[in-house]
């Protein structure tokens, strides 16, 4: 289990890395095939993805809709710019909450790393303000409340699911 990292780079970038115990082809497919995407890209616990449109070709559309089953929901739209199977995806996306957020330009790379994959997702925000807003949770300054909460929430659950799957 490798921890996700999420950090800033320069003024406009947010870089997320994560290792997976599967080859790049599998990780790439899990990012481009709706049947696979809707099994994991669900956000917080309890949410589902009733609409998953992913036209994995340059110019192809992306539309994901999430629902919390209680009438709450939001959606994301986007377009693919470049795809290099099984190593690189470039797309633009925005959330609708319901007003659209500024466009987030995303490059996702999948590199073989031993028997697994190192995924590097670089998000480019349109301006430093937008990024500051995204990052205002204060992670650069060590206010790691959501971090700590996340760990306390996720880890027992992971330990539980690992036990269950054994």
């Amino acid at each position, binding site marked *: 289990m490798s921890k996700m990292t999420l950090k800033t780079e320069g003024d406009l970038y947010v870089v997320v890395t994560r290792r997976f115990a*599967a080859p790049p082809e599998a990780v790439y497919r899990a990012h481009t095939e709706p049947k696979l995407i809707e099994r994991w890209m669900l956000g917080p616990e309890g949410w589902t993805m009733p609409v998953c449109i992913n036209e994995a070709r340059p110019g192809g559309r992306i539309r994901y809709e999430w629902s919390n089953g209680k009438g709450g929901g939001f959606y994301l739209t986007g377009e693919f710019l470049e795809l290099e199977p099984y190593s690189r995806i470039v797309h633009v996306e925005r959330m609708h909450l319901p007003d659209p957020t500024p466009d987030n330009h995303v490059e996702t790379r999948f590199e073989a790393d031993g028997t697994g994959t190192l995924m590097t997702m670089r998000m480019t925000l349109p301006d*430093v303000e937008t990024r500051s807003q995204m990052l205002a*949770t204060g992670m*650069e300054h060590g206010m790691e409340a*959501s971090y700590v909460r996340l760990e306390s929430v996720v880890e027992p659950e992971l330990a539980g*699911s690992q036990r269950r799957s054994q």
Partner: protein
Amino acid sequence: MPDLDTAFNALADPTRRAILARLALGEATVMELVEPFEVTQPAISRHLKVLEVAGLIVRRAEGTKRPCRLSKAGLEAIDQWLGMLREALARNYDRLDAVLAQINQEQMNPEKGETR
């Protein structure tokens, strides 16, 4: 609940984020905040005003001093919105681990994979 736009704007400044990080350790007066930041007292006071209007901090009167502390409601509102990205991603990738393990199993053991 404070207006999120005002709150995000207030947070789009490194000194104000640093002030919040300091206040996360506990209440502080303006003078106590001036010390570590190498910023003038009027400048700190202006930053505090912005944070107060944004609902991120609250101040109380104690004689002539007005100590500041984090506002729970303000920070929770922001935290909720901003935590979404990190938390959603981390959870998504944990789920993706499971999906990848299943893909792998189906490839290694196609029959078992299909009768699962």
